[in-house]
């Protein structure tokens, strides 16, 4: 199998047809102004509402269920670690598909459907808990206290690191490279949790923080100890993002946008004709794209400070949840065919981690169902619909937050820059998928 220059897939989606771009952009724009002008003027989701689920709460909180789930996920990671450390350095090694597809893309559907399950079953937490049990120390206790202001900034940096690995790192589909990154991830998280206690994992694990942010859009929400089935928008609006959440959503949105941007003819031609090395171009492009999102979003949110009673710098963090649906929409549009095709491929490869012809899991003889590629119009519809739906949910959430945070008569004037910025993200995402 030939190793592609970029990523692990040897096939990419066709450019989004222009008619789809136009219709989707018009819809996004139209809905935005309808929401701005006609939607509710007083917060609707101040109480979470929903249905309480006492039996489900008991089930998911039972130590047996949690223990089994954590051990199963730990076993899966151990199995992949076997392939990573002892497998063959070929694209048929399942560790590539596991990291770039199952973890990076798979965490979205898992978190949307099952809520914060990523956090509960995070193998780093399990390893840390086992170490603490052996040493008879409290896993919450560390040697130092992690300042509150640190929030999830370490994870934002980690997400930039992963995006750099996925999009820039030369030879990213070789074992030598992936081993270094995987070991760095694991060692930094485990050492950090020994120093700061297990709150470090929630602050620094890029995958857990990404998954936890996406899980805010799931229909499952905790109110006190009790699990509830809620309106996902109410759940998202109730979220109090930690410090650094703006960095997290900017890294996610910016890196996905850059992945599409790097496919523009103009960009590839410029980079390939230049005397400056590709890594420098790509690193710069990725950083600039993330900074553009960070700065535009922060400024639009800070504008609300003119009308509200908090300082301007408080608003970006309060509004960060509104970007989560846009991030999810971008990611779905970007990765849906990769998840379907390479996700299956990885499940097949996992049956033979060392490349010795084993079929341990019984999946080894299956073949990848590539039907999805025979329906480009369907794929294009899903992509455009994901972007528009993400945009609509984002706009509605931003509106809800604006009317909750600002006095009633000022809410409109306070939120229009946010609306403009979000329309910009959505139109940019569509144009990048059109990929001229």
């Amino acid at each position, binding site marked *: 199998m030939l190793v*592609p220059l970029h990523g692990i897939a040897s096939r990419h989606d066709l450019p989004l047809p222009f008619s789809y771009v136009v219709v989707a952009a018009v819809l996004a724009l139209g809905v935005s102004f309808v929401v701005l002008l006609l939607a509710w003027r007083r917060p609707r989701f101040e109480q979470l509402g929903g249905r309480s689920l006492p039996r489900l709460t008991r089930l998911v909180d039972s130590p047996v269920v949690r223990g089994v789930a954590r051990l199963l996920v730990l076993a899966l990671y151990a199995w992949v670690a076997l392939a990573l450390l002892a497998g063959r350095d070929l694209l048929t090694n399942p560790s590539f598909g596991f990291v770039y597809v199952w973890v990076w893309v798979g965490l979205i559907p898992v978190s949307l459907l099952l809520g914060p399950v990523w956090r509960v079953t995070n193998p780093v937490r399990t390893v840390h808990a086992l170490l603490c049990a052996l040493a008879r120390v409290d896993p919450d206790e560390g040697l130092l206290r992690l300042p509150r202001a640190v929030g999830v900034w370490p994870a934002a940096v980690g997400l930039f690191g992963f995006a750099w690995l996925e999009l820039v790192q030369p030879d990213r589909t070789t074992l030598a490279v992936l081993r270094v990154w995987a070991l760095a991830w694991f060692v930094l998280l485990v050492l950090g949790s020994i120093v700061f206690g297990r709150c470090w994992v929630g602050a620094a694990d890029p995958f857990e923080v990404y998954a936890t942010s996406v899980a805010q859009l799931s229909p499952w929400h905790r109110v006190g100890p009790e699990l509830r089935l809620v309106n996902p928008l109410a759940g998202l609006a109730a979220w109090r993002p930690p410090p650094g959440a703006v960095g997290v959503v900017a890294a996610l949105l910016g890196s996905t946008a850059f992945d599409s941007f790097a496919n523009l003819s103009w960009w590839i031609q410029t980079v390939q004709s230049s005397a400056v090395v590709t890594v420098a171009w790509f690193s710069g492009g990725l950083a600039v794209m993330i900074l553009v999102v960070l700065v535009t979003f922060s400024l639009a949110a800070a504008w609300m400070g003119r009308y509200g009673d908090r300082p301007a710098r408080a608003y970006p963090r309060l509004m960060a949840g509104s970007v989560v649906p846009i991030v999810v929409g971008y990611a779905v549009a970007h990765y849906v065919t990769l998840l379907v095709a390479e996700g299956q491929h990885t499940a097949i490869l996992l049956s033979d981690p060392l490349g010795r012809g084993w079929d341990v899991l019984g999946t080894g003889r299956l073949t990848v169902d590539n039907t999805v590629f025979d329906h480009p119009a369907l794929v294009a519809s899903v992509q455009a619909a994901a972007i528009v739906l993400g945009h609509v949910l984002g706009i509605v959430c931003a509106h809800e937050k604006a009317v909750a945070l600002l006095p009633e008569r000022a809410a409109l004037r306070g939120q229009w820059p946010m609306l403009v910025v979000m329309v910009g993200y959505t139109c940019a995402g569509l144009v990048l998928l059109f990929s001229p």
Partner: protein
Amino acid sequence: MSPTSTGGPRGTRTAAALVLAAALLLTGCGGTSAPGDTGNGGGGASSPASSTSAGPLTIDITMTGDTVSPNAEKIDASVGQQVVLQVTSDTDDEVHAHTGGDGYELEVGAGTPATGRFSLDTPGSFEVESHSRGKVIAILNVR
């Protein structure tokens, strides 16, 4: 106590209607315009999607020093079409076409023109790359 005491149900219905309208418009759009009608690439032989008659797509590739020509050109092609690569290079190199599955590989000796052909069996966007130079020669948009 319901959280939707301030005229909320109407808002939910409005939002739901908007989402539904968006979905309908998008799928309606899919019905009326085939995704094949937006050819924006250069150089290629564009042809109707149901192409049994499309002739082969010939790409002349010249690689000198650190440069490749064409340089990351987007080319429209159709499912079932044959692609003929005519390659000259001043160093030993390999041209890879990532056409899904195992892909296609053409070895090129320094100064010796090489010709290779493969067929495009499924829709998608595929890269033709110089392996040693690590550069994208062409992107085939197959519809």
